[in-house]
């Protein structure tokens, strides 16, 4: 039986620069990057050195604490460099593409092999990291058996790609294979969560053997954390897994073709992009080709992902492991004369303290200006309006700041991730770094509970 859930809480940030429904074709970048910083809580251990030749599927680094989890090169080529940050933390391993060779993981009928063999395949190929878990919003533990697996088939984030458009241009048979493989990893259900109602999702009509649910409402209605909270909430000691739906296709491809090819369709978006549209690209590819000559004049921020949760990668950076979207917006490094007192006809705000709130539906060009300085928590009752879960966001954040483990557990930290609170951070009049606070809380819980 499918469930329809209508959410009222939340907020759609109306940005300029949504991608036209047009697939510009495949881009094949020369440079690729595998980035440990895409995976929260990961301590990487390098498997390669600069100068070494790799194939698509060759391990580049692995998880120091769980060495069976490998991160592999998305293309064949040569390791160019290992970029490090503070305290020699590995930021990215850069690979220059050459040739088309890939490691042969062997074709397999996902319906016939065992769960252990499926895990083995996923771990060896480097696709395992695409499976993440609540609690903590980190890469799933191969030893666990989750009570269910969630796949979100839509995204409500600002300028998010239209998944139906992506689906129409993707291989449904690989998607089916991927679902078959995943269904072996849980005794529970595979939840396929879609937008609106079944009429909006004709493409997925033929998919069977899964539990279909429908969500509607403003962002974050498309967040998998919200779906889990409403359909199969995570209690203490329980684990739920989730996979991005384009990664399910990659998983299917692994079993159908025996290769690791994390190819996906991404949306190039944002007010500074001249021609926002869709592209086919292999995960980890440099965005240089996409943005060169395709951005307006000025200083910009290049984001892999959306404006709320994405990563600042610069004009030559690499598409993040979990991202299906590139957003380019203007930087906001300017002083604004009495900016806080302006009537604000062109300022987009969640609050109704700007004149712009009188004009619904208009899209805005927002920049990266901070709009103020950090303050203590003062205003109350705002975060609750953008978190469609039965959770007290401010109290949970305060527990995280106080590092109160019992309180965090009691207030439901196992159910949330940074992305679920990203809107709180956007609207916060005290300009608090909410996502970092929550991440620190999640990391602390993970450390204490292991």
């Amino acid at each position: 039986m499918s469930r329809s859930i209508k959410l009222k809480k939340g907020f759609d940030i109306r940005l300029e620069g949504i991608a036209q429904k047009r697939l510009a074709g495949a881009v094949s970048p020369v440079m690729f990057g595998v980035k440990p910083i895409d995976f929260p809580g990961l301590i990487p251990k390098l498997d390669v050195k600069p100068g070494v030749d790799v194939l698509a599927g060759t391990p580049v680094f692995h998880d120091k604490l769980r060495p069976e989890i490998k991160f592999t090169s998305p293309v064949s080529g040569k390791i160019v460099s290992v970029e490090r940050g503070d305290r020699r933390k590995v930021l990215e391993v850069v690979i220059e593409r050459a040739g088309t060779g890939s490691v042969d993981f062997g074709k397999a009928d996902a319906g016939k092999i065992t769960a252990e063999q499926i895990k083995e395949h996923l771990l060896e190929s480097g696709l395992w990291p695409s499976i993440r878990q609540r609690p903590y919003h980190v890469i799933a533990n191969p030893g666990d058996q989750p009570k269910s697996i969630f796949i979100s088939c839509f995204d409500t984030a600002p300028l998010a790609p239209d998944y139906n458009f992506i689906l129409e241009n993707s291989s449904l048979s690989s998607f089916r294979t991927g679902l078959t493989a995943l269904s072996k990893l849980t005794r529970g259900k595979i939840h396929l969560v879609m937008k609106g109602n079944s009429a909006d999702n004709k493409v997925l009509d033929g998919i069977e053997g899964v539990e279909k649910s429908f969500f509607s409402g403003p962002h974050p209605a498309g967040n998998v954390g919200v779906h889990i909270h409403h359909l199969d909430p995570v209690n203490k000691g329980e684990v739920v897994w989730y996979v991005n739906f384009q990664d399910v296709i990659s998983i299917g491809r692994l079993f159908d073709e025996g290769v690791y090819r994390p190819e996906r369709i991404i949306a190039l978006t944002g007010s500074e992009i001249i021609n926002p549209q869709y592209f086919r690209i292999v995960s980890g590819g440099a965005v240089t080709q996409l943005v060169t000559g395709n951005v307006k004049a000025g200083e910009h921020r290049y984001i892999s992902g959306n404006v709320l949760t994405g990563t600042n990668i610069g004009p030559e950076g690499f598409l993040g492991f979990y991202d299906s979207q590139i957003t380019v917006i203007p930087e906001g490094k300017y002083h604004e004369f009495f900016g806080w007192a302006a009537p604000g006809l062109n300022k987009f705000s969640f609050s109704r303290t700007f004149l712009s709130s009188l004009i619904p539906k208009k899209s805005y060009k927002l920049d990266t200006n901070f709009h103020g300085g950090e303050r203590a928590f003062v205003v109350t009752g705002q975060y609750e309006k953008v978190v469609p879960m039965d959770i007290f966001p401010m109290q949970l954040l305060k527990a995280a700041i106080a590092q109160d483990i019992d309180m965090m557990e009691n207030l439901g930290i196992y159910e949330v991730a940074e992305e679920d609170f990203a809107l709180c951070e956007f609207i916060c009049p005290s300009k608090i770094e909410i996502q970092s606070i929550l991440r620190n809380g999640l990391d602390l819980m993970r450390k204490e509970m292991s």
Partner: protein
Amino acid sequence: MIMNSLRKTLDKLKPHFTKGGKFAKLQSVFEGFEAFMFVSDKVTFKGSHIRDPLDLKRTMTVVIIALLPALLFGSYNTGLQHFRSIGTDPALFQAFWFGFLRILPLIIVSYVVGLGIEFIVAQIRGHEINEGYLVTGLLIPLIMPIDVPLWMLALAVAFSVILGKEIFGGTGMNVFNPALLARAFIFFSYPAWMTGDNVWTEGLTAGKNIIDGFSGATPLSLAAAGEITKLPSFIQMLIGTIPGSVGETSAIAILIGAVILILTGVGSWKIIVSVFAGGIGMGLLLNAISANTYMELPFYYHLVMGGFAFGAVFMATDPVSGAQTEKGKWIYGFLIGVLSVLIRVLNPAYPEGVMLAILLMNVFASLIDYYIIQSNIKKRLRRAKVALNTNIK
């Protein structure tokens, strides 16, 4: 043009006000003024790449705008009461200007003392200056009797900012509403200046040129004395041409402020509505009992008398000292309304109940929140238990 040269001047001065500069001790003050004139050029660094343009400065500004009708009417009424006391009938502007000039010193003293302390504390702590006092600084004069001596006001402000706010950690950390604390300080330390019939009218304490038979008694003290028949009419109290604290007399001016707060979403409509609901509920109950003349006073009189409306709209809605959960706000507001009327009618020692009701509920706000949050926690634990049982089966 002016803007650019101002910006350049600020950039030139800035090094002197940072660590190692000549005026490093004034860094917080400099940054406070800089941030006041120019929104910082800081950009997002981690987390969300875009931020809502709403900040605390703007939030506080909205509250100040909402207070303006009460301030403007308060100026007029201060003049009006004064001229009535000496038996003349002033023109509208004459009354307004007279009152405004009398209120201005109160506002200046409140801001100079309060912000001065904020600047010093911010510098000691190495923080940016918080905007919280911008609102408190205007609230305090509006809940004072016009004849309050300035030194007393300064002392009350210092007390409320230091002992009411800064020792708890500054804006956002205080238990009590700082403005009400200032009033409570005078109420208990110098009761002669916060009660009685003389302090509410400009010049009445000095007693010069007062015409015979003029009484500066507020409706509340009349009611407490049982002189219900002497009360001004409901309409008069609604409009606010009655003696009382500077900004509290006009329910209409305050309601305009309430509309601004509710439309912008800056003030919690739940608290405002529930305070009124509590007041009406208690008023009706007392009407039903009707044991004395005060109890017989029609319930709606309570809403326009004294500081009830002002407290409901501007004091109870303080997000820091009030309940912080949405369900809690209903309970918090309702109890403020109930207690305000209860204290007024049943406790002859305190003719005005609103201040004490809100301060009392400030204390209980966290208790209310505690139970609301506990119910959420219990729900989560119950869910976990059910899940555990089904797994075992």
